[in-house]
């Protein structure tokens, strides 16, 4: 539609005696997209492409070591079979984090949308997002104080039941998932909120006046209509979570080994950028394969 308007503008433009032929639509489209794509090329595509080239090298091309092009970095999953286990762990952590975010985020968004009294909605939204404006590292470290043995969680329990054992679960996968859910929840709340706000209240009123119970409204009306929000939230969360390294490292202790920490180690400790890059691109391929497998479900979701 934008293009149509632009064409008509360029038709009206030359009001001189000579009538010029209108510019073909792709010219204006290209011209408009050029700044964006120029910036993206400079800031994203070129560095990523360099990393892609790096992933075929035998060593990091800084220093005096001779560089040979090789495919051996992509054989890492065969040469070091334990990486497969780490990959599966990362995908599972991603799955559980996304699931918990979806449940909590959707309910939070519903609560936000239902609170229509005065300006409470905006207030609540800001109150929910406020804690997320603090530094991520600080928030993750504060979880260690809550979850550790004799931490806040334990103190709370011992106030009620002084003889109970410890329920601290720092340095487990559960702790990692808790930290990640906390970190990525806003994405789900915001995407679901945007999807839910667009739903006409009249639909819900009609449903309830026809006798629908709250769970029918939730599962039959709200969830299908807000599915695009849920799905984009899930995608926004799943991808960064399987590459995350800060939360597993701090909250995972001994078990906090994920693809993210392995890749980070390759870049920061081992100075083996090619292996780090090849692992990242392999991970990207796996994620794309997962999305391709479920693309049918995803498309149906967004249409509904």
């Amino acid at each position, binding site marked *: 539609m934008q293009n149509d308007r632009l064409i008509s503008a360029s038709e009206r433009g030359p009001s001189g005696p000579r009538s010029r032929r209108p510019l073909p639509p792709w010219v204006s489209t290209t011209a408009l997209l050029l700044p964006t794509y120029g910036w993206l090329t400079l800031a994203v595509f070129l560095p990523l492409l360099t990393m892609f080239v790096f992933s075929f090298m035998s060593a990091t091309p800084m*220093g005096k070591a001779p560089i040979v092009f090789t495919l051996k970095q992509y054989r890492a999953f065969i040469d070091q079979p334990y990486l497969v286990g780490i990959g599966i*762990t990362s995908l599972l952590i991603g799955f559980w984090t996304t699931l918990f975010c979806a449940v909590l985020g959707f309910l939070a968004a519903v609560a936000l949308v239902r609170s229509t009294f005065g300006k409470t909605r905006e207030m609540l939204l800001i109150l929910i997002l406020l804690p997320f404006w603090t530094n991520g590292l600080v928030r993750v470290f504060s979880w260690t104080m809550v979850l550790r043995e004799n931490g806040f969680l334990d103190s709370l329990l011992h106030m009620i039941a002084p003889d109970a054992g410890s329920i601290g679960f720092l340095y487990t996968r559960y702790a990692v998932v808790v930290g990640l859910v906390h970190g990525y929840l806003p994405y789900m709340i915001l995407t679901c909120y945007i999807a839910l706000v667009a739903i006409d209240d009249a639909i819900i009123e009609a449903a309830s006046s026809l006798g629908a119970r709250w769970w029918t409204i939730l599962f039959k009306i709200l969830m299908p209509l807000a599915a695009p929000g849920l799905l984009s939230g899930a995608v926004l969360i799943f991808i*960064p979570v399987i*590459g995350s*390294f800060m939360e597993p490292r701090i909250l995972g202790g001994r078990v906090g*080994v994920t693809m993210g920490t392995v890749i980070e180690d390759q870049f920061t400790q*081992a100075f083996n950028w090619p292996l780090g890059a090849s692992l990242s691109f392999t991970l990207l391929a796996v994620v794309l394969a997962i999305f391709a497998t479920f693309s049918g479900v995803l498309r149906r979701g967004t249409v509904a």
Partner: protein
Amino acid sequence: MTELTRRNTMKLMSAALIAGVSISTLPRKAFSAGSITVLNWQGYGTDEAWSLKAFTEKTGITVVHDYYSSESEMLTKMRTNPGAYDLVILNAARCAQAVAEDLLQPIDFSKVPNASTVDETLRANPNFSKDGKGYAVPWVWGMTSLAIREGMTVPDSYAVLADPAYKGRVAMDDDAIINVGVGALMSGQDINDPKDLAAVTAALKSIKPNVKLLWSTEDQWNKSFAAKEFDLSLFWSGGSVRSKRVSKLPVQFVVPKEGGVGWVDGLGVPASAPNPEGALAFVNWMIDPTFYVEWATKIGAPASSNSAALSALPADDLTRLVHKTEYLKTTSFVSGIPDDRREAFNNVWQEVKAFYAE
């Protein structure tokens, strides 16, 4: 979120690099005979104001500083700025690399009288010399070894890491070189060139039931130790001194019979140094007991390579108690290793970590 952090770090790093380069290119014109430029980590001994003032008063040489934030940056600065630096502080492992690239010049030890009391074991470190000529004066050193909660039985071997008595009470340093070193010591091998990496892997895997966490920063170590999350750990000698002195933690540093995994920093003169004489005068000042005692007691310092300086510390000084000179005989020092071996070490540690996480 992680993306943003990483990107910010890159931004900061490049800003620091640009700032560093512009600063290092500006004052370069004024190298008179009375001035030297030192390349070091920031706040690492050479740039103490009181020391520089006294040094200038005594010798008439003024000291200018430039800093690096990683060892690879230090090498890059030396490669790309010939004639800019008179003195550089570099780790033994990096020194071998710098010497191989002809970035350093041989040291005239007759101009460094204090070097006569530098410990022989450190001076003989093959990374500091080539063809019988010394290319750096050993300056300070430290070790990674065991740290245990005070009052518990003092272990005499790294085998204690696998002792069932410490089930779930052990913390490991998340560093490939250190862990392969400890694994090599546990299986009776050379830390820099273990022939049997499978034995190293097996030794490290054997401690799995005991491993509670992997730490990567001193701060993390202090917090977890204070919260009583572990009792026994691989730890840095200098870190243990700071934990005890600053954070008042009940920690005892132990070097078992296999010896520690050591590091040593040297003072080297770049091949293109405009003022090597002045640099050597400053080297002599840096390993002098007078400077060292003040540095170690006022500010806090690693162990001096100069045994005369180390024994000039008060008898009850923690640094001195932790870094006994006799340990130097058993300590193996990390040295420069070829890339393929470094990669193999990293793979061993990744595999062990994955095994811990199972």
